[in-house]
């Protein structure tokens, strides 16, 4: 609790951080209370009113099937926040375990895991995603697999380096001399020391993850219709860009707001809590 208080206390002097926090809260609240905020059923078809402009009934107009764009945008925030939470937690978990194993385990394990990390990082994300989609078919699960597979190696490498740096410290050597096993050394002594900076890096990855999900859904290989996703809304708008520009305009705004919010907040948090990562920016 004190930690949260400290964050808010220090955030007071960071206008960019406050701005980011407000945007993030807006998106998260929107995702949590989405069912109460929508004005229409986001998947309800109304062919008579298709491609209608913004009005008092449809604040952001309607798409090619007459669905209310505002309601779809609001519900889309759920997909974005959910995918971000699930993928970042999974990547963090896998990266932590494998990274600590590489950093503390025997040399052969280190070399093997490092090769795995470097190989997975060598695929350009979207290309890798498209290749996986050919195999598994487009779905939310494929999106999650792609994002986790391309982000966990980054955490893994980072955890490995930090574990190696810590493993040589006197307090770890002393602990080992007293007979502590690998699980105790890693779980009780190394983990608490590396988890802080890792969370900051993970929080800065949230906008990247949301962008990948929206990007894949925009390409039509992500979340399946009729599930409302910001990328899918942009895809709908792209097909009708010449006659109905509002779908693209309103579909892009939440994506910009979310990525800006998380980036501004993440940058401020990093500057506040990890000056080593800051490089005087």
């Amino acid at each position, binding site marked *: 609790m004190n930690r949260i208080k400290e964050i808010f206390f220090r955030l007071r002097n960071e206008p960019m951080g406050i701005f980011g926090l407000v945007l993030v809260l807006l998106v998260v609240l929107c995702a949590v209370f989405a069912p109460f905020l929508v004005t229409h059923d986001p998947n309800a078809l109304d062919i008579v009113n298709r491609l209608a402009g913004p009005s008092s009934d449809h604040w952001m107009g309607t798409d090619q099937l007459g669905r209310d764009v505002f309601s779809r945008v609001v519900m889309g925030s759920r997909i974005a926040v959910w995918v971000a939470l699930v993928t970042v937690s999974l990547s963090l978990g896998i990266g932590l375990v494998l990274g600590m194993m590489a950093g503390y385990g025997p040399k052969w394990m280190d070399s093997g895991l490092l090769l795995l990390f470097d190989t997975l990082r060598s695929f350009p*994300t979207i290309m890798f995603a498209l290749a996986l989609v050919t195999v598994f078919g487009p779905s939310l699960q494929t999106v999650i697999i792609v994002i986790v597979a391309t982000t966990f190696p980054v955490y893994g490498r980072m955890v490995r380096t930090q574990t190696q740096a810590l493993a040589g410290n006197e307090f770890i050597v002393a602990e080992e001399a007293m007979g502590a096993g690998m699980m105790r050394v890693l779980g009780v002594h190394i983990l608490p020391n590396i988890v802080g900076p890792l969370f900051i890096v993970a929080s800065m990855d949230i906008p990247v993850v949301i962008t990948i999900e929206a990007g894949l859904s925009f390409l039509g290989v992500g979340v399946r219709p009729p599930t409302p996703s910001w990328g899918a809304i942009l895809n709908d708008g792209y097909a009708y860009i010449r006659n109905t520009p509002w779908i*693209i305009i309103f579909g892009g705004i939440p994506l910009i707001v979310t990525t800006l919010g998380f980036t501004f907040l993440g940058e401020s948090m990093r500057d506040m809590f990890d000056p080593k990562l800051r490089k005087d*920016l």
Partner: protein
Amino acid sequence: MLFYLLKRVGLAVVIVVVAVVLLYSMIHVVPGDPASVMLGPRATPEMKQEIYERMGLDRPFVVQVASFLGNVARGNLGMDFFSERPVAEIVFKQLDETLVLVLASISWAMLLGIPLGCYSAVFRNRFSDKLVGVFSIGVIAVPSFVVALYSLLFFAVTLKWLPAIGAGESGQFLDQVQHLILPAFAIGLGWVGYIARLVRASMLEVLNENHIRRARAFGLPETTIVFHYALKLAILPTVTLLGTGIGRLISSAVFAEIVFARPGIGKLIFDSVVSRNYPLVMGAVLVSTVLFVLSTTISDSINAMLDPRVRERL
């Protein structure tokens, strides 16, 4: 240094081999079998058998991988069944288009990002520096495909200043340049922010060094100090950033090529995914991966040449 280079190149080769094996193995996890997926539900057993034989899927898995690796090493990426042309020929033709786009994007980003970074460093902590900082983070955060869509909407569809789709008539240079502007803008915008931030950070370090103080003491004009002496050193991290950033650049190019309906490797992969053309997907992903591994190897080697500490980390 030679030892480092050998080790680094060796690692790159191993990574590419593992990547090839991974990509090839993917075909074997396809639900159903690849031949049915490619040919659709109406495929006859004879047609399936032909695809199996031509793709070599009737042989043991290890033999298939080994023969695929051998072919890749000789530059043979297989045949495209639909157009009956070699995959390598199709991919490399499209790669040129993508490289032109990527090069154009990064060039304008550097032209704007480097002076912005220098300006920020020289006027450190002033209001304008903070403004550049917020601008940089802002453009980094906005997804490039949203920039592509918005620029298509405003500059091509609404204002009609620039052409919306295609890469222009071949042979007509001006037309091609016009078609290049919007996609290059969309890809490069985020990079302006990256480069400005990086140049500012390394410039601040360099400006505090003794040789710069000495130049100041000699009374050299500030512009000469910044652009002639400091920038030469401060630009190095940017050059290495480009090496590791090529993967992200290629990913952004996929979106720009699709939004602006431009030919290129991104569009090629996307179209092949839609038509389930496995050999083409594999060939194109492989080429872009090799390109990425190659550029990170080069940038790591340059880094190691400049900073001996990097050599020890491998």
